[in-house]
């Protein structure tokens, strides 16, 4: 659907990966997780996270539900679906293929 080397492609991959490890996260938590794990190297543009999440929800890769948090505020939690898991595998292998190719170019050139 998206080109493997586009920013969106990598954002989708990151979100899917995070959600495959830790289920039921809200948007802010997903963003924080990406930042923490990448040790602040990958800072997603916060705004583009939500359209991406909604698009993935529409595509059926993630499922969302509203919950009421302890502080009484509502939050929208996301979790991976079976289709999302499949998509993750595809995206991951595509990512590996692209990075391997880029690495080859870097080594050989």
């Amino acid at each position, binding site marked *: 659907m998206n080109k493997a080397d586009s920013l969106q492609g990598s954002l989708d991959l990151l979100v899917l990966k995070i959600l495959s490890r830790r289920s039921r996260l*809200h*948007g*802010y*938590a997903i963003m924080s997780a990406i930042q923490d794990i990448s040790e602040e190297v990958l800072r997603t543009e916060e705004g583009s996270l*939500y359209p991406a999440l*909604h698009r993935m929800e529409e595509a*059926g890769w993630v499922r969302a539900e509203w919950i009421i948090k302890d502080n009484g*505020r509502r939050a929208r939690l996301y979790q991976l679906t079976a289709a999302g898991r499949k998509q993750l595998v595809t995206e991951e292998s595509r990512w590996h293929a692209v990075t391997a190719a880029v690495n080859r170019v870097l080594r050989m050139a």
Partner: protein
Amino acid sequence: MSLWSRIANVFRADRLSREIDEELQSHLAEAAEQGRDPAEARRALGSALRLREESRDVRLIVWLDSLRADAVFGWRQLMKNKLVSAAAILSLALGIGACTSAFRLIDALLFRPLPVTHPEQLYELARTGIDPEGRIGTFDGWAYPDFQQMRAAARGEAELIAISYSQQTDITYGSDQYMEKVYLQYVSGWMFSSFGLRPTLGRLLSESDDLKPRAHPYAVLSYDYWKRRFGEDPKVIGRTFRMGNDLYEVVGVGPKRFTGTEPGTIIDIFVPTMMHPGAVRPDWTWMRTLARVNPGVPLELLRARLDATSRAFEEDRAKGFLGMTKKEINEILNHPLIMEPAASGASDMQSDYRTSLAALGVLVALVLLIACANVANLMTAQAAARAREMALRVSIGAGRWRLVRLVLVESAWLAFLAAALGGLFAWWSAPVVVGMINPPDDPARLVLPADWRVVGFGLALTVGVMLLFGLAPALRASAVQPVSALKGGQDPHSRRRLMHALIAVQTAFCFLVLFVAGLFVATFQRLSNRPTGFSADRLLTLDTVARRPQAQVYWNQTLQHLRELPGVESVALANSPLMAGWSWNNSVSVAGAPPNGVLSYFMSVSPGWVETMKIPLIAGRDFRPSDTYPGMALVNQTFAKKYFNGDNPVGKSFDMLFYNGKSAHFEVVGLVGDVCYRDVHEAILPQAYYPFQSRDSKNALELKGQDQGTFIVRTAGANPLAMASILRREVPRAWPEFRVSNIRTQIEIDQSHTVRERLLARLAFFFGVVALLLAGVGLYGVLDYSVLQRRREVAIRMALGARAGHIARRVTADVYSMVVAGALAGLALGFASVRYIESLLYQVRPTDPRMLALPALTILAAALVAGLPPVIRAVRIDPAAILRAE
């Protein structure tokens, strides 16, 4: 699921936006909890509005959402001007409804295939010829022996099916006192299997039920009759009913949707053709012939073969014609056979109403077009008022297509609201029109299903109408030039040109509708006012039957009994009421000379009939009780003219010639006035009356009994129907063998001939009024708009000293010249179209100046009335106020 949720999201878009906002809010709250600066977090998140739009667009179907937005916007536009919108919707609804209704009728009567297998293989056999008035006509009646020969000739290529003209018949179940009227049809036994029909109950007729004359008294009920009369009682199989002297057994019930082959009549009972008394008569044409042609058979060859067979039959029969020249016989024979497609069956109603319904269809289509023109003008005017809004939309990036859609959606609102109302109108009106078609005692019954054909037509019509009135304004609105529109200076004349053209079109159509309506109304008036030669006031006709012939003495005894009843002025007896459809003609020979080719029409009447009918006795005397058939006759003036050169015929004699070579001799005892014999449309026919009392043809000394006759009663009271129930009771009281099978007033019978003209006149008049009203409203709207648009110009002219008359001319000149142009175009259209409806007119000449003046004057008056308010408004403009406002 995804597509469905996206469609669903379109209709809960507000909630969707709220949810997205809430999620973004919770993001910010979370950030604040983590100790981030709220302002920084908000900056990092970016524009909430942009994010919301972006998220929304992935979660719903964008075009559907904008369509929804357009629909909501369009609805608001309609509600802004409720009165105008309602008027537009109502006029469109009337147009759409009337058109759909007309389609329902036309489809049900003329186009809907019969519910049989392969209806497209069905053809009807008919003969063409020139009728006495010189018009080409077709005649579809056949004699049964002729049919049998043709069927044998077509074997292997086509199956021929005999189907009698449906007739109302008296039958009794059980007691003879309870007589019922049913629509009965004699059909070939093999009709059902050839049509591929299956019984609902019991069995249908088959070929073996149709072999020997009078040997198969079996009947099949139609589903409709079984349901109405017997409440779907399965025990009806095996029941018997009496018709005439025969006892019939019900053997089955037909399939649900099959109502016979005559659209306009729903048959109750089918019996075999062999039970018809005419089954062996070569001179009695009482049935239609349908042919189911096998696939691949060349039609022309088949037709030629049938034509040759039928001609040979007629030639054989013509050998028995006496005293006719070869030329006359050839004229009778020279009626080529034709085969016409009959997928939708064949009925008199089809041939009677084909042109009428087409004419009405065109009238209502014109009314719809007038309504469309009105709405188009309305939309154009509104588009003009919204030019700035459109320009603004274009400047902030709306696409042209989007603007077209915006205006079209508004049109769609109008069209579909109108279609919904129009659907109701069509649902109600089509049966009402069918109800107007026939006289009350013989109602037309037409199956009018509202299925996909009708709904599809309605939808197509609605979309067509929407494009017709909406597309031009929509394209025009979308072509707005923002720069000039926002400056407020678009060329106002371009809009007006379109509106003026539509005014001309409207006027032309309105003229045409009024012109045709005028012709129909005049036709009806002339027919209704045509003298019939007798007085129908207070006349009641009692069709009376007996199971077997009754001697003359009992008929006389009953006459006498009825005469003595209070409230009865006079009573007479005839074999049928005048103008009731019955006719009998024969050649006449005067003084042994060969007949002169003019047929004479006959009727049997009792002494006193002439006086009861108030027909003037010009010379000689009325019948006496001792007069008999054959023997004495009364003749009318036309008879005297045609056979006796206009001399006084009293005392002279003539012979009535029969097909089998026999003849009957008559002496003329009286000359009476001319009357309409059969149909008010016809010219007066030569008629002769002979006594009801007749001698036996075998033993001339014996009087012959009669099994049916009609008592003609002139009542003293103004309302003859008040006596109907008394008379119905008194006839069997006078002689118990008699039963009254039908009571009608003579006025009712007379009016039944003008049913079609009355229907056309009424509906055309109604639509004429509607057309005039719509055109008037349209004219008013355009004038009003143009005054509004030109108020600055008018104000300047007034400020410079123009007079009121000058202003009035100035604002109306364009529009009124369009009205005149339209009226002239309408006149041309009228002349061009009149030949299509000529067969519906009676003694009305379309070129009659009065027929032209009427629509012209009406339109002129309507135009003046419609123009008055805008003109008043124009001359009352206060130049100071307008110019200051500018």
